């Protein structure tokens, strides 16, 4: 009985995964925004040119042939080279699109690590100064404080 339940549970868990393994047919909009108009240098979904229309027709033809999104992108890359894809290439100058954001984040983190101890030291020094000398009061406030204290004393 326990084994049967386990098998049933395993079936329920694995069934959706199996269904997910089947590649769905590509959606035009899904492909269009991941492909470049290679003469206008903008993503195809915002391009307006005869070449863009030609590329759209090619994608529709490949979808009609039953190709998945990945297969369509691979076919376009095979025919026109990697520049046809909207993702930055991992070679040449385009590689800067990958490492520049990483370098900037690392540099900012390093800057933060360098400045944080100084800010904390300064904060502690300010606190110590404030606790030693009390908060600075304006002349009017000091006078009012003295008057209030004098009233309490009487």
């Amino acid at each position, binding site marked *: 009985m326990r084994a049967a339940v386990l098998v049933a549970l395993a079936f329920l868990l694995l069934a959706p995964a199996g269904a997910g393994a089947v590649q769905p047919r590509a959606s035009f909009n899904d492909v269009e925004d991941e492909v470049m108009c290679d003469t206008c240098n903008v993503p195809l979904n915002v391009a307006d040119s005869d070449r863009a*229309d*030609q590329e759209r027709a090619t994608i529709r033809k490949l979808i009609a042939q039953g190709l998945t999104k990945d297969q369509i992108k691979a076919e376009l890359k095979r*025919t026109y080279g990697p520049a046809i894809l909207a993702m930055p290439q991992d070679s040449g100058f385009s590689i800067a699109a990958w490492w520049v954001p990483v*370098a900037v984040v690392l540099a900012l983190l*390093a*800057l933060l690590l*360098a400045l944080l101890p100084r800010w904390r030291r300064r904060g502690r020094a300010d606190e110590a100064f404030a606790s030693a000398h009390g908060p600075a009061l304006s002349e009017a406030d000091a006078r009012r404080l003295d008057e209030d204290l004098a009233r309490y004393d009487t």
Partner: protein
Amino acid sequence: MKRSAVPIAVAVLAAALVGLLVYGVVARKDDTSLDAAVQKGQRPQAPGSAVTLPTLDGSTQRSLAQLRGRVVVLNFWASWCGPCEQEAPVLEKAQQQLAQNGGTVLGVTYKDDAGASRDFVRRYKLTYPSLRDDKLALAPKFGTNKLPETFVLDKSGRVVALSRGEVSQSFLMQAIDRAQAS
């Protein structure tokens, strides 16, 4: 980190980013070295003569080097390019003239669907061969990034004249005469 090291590090990073930006802009600048040489009256060797490209039907591969010894009118075109349609009859006429002396027009398609290119050839009854440069192995060597563009090469494979934009009949005939005379 010392007190003075932080602004220096920030300045270096900012300078590096600006340098990268400048390089990106400069690297994308059009290559006009052929134009400058031809304007000076020189005849620069045509670049990329060893590059082999497939014919429109994909049956064979050809290169400019294989056409050495013949006058060649190299024309970059695409079926989606309006001016290319306008100049197609002019180029076909040039082909008729060139063929009598062993020369040829050589079309090279630029970022074009192969089926659409073949339809274009049929529609305009073009008799000269065309090659496919889908991955841009040849066009950038001629500084070509707009269409149409035409280069007239003499029998030694040197650039005699070039036209960036729609080619005119008079330009083509004069350039062919000069190429044949050399």
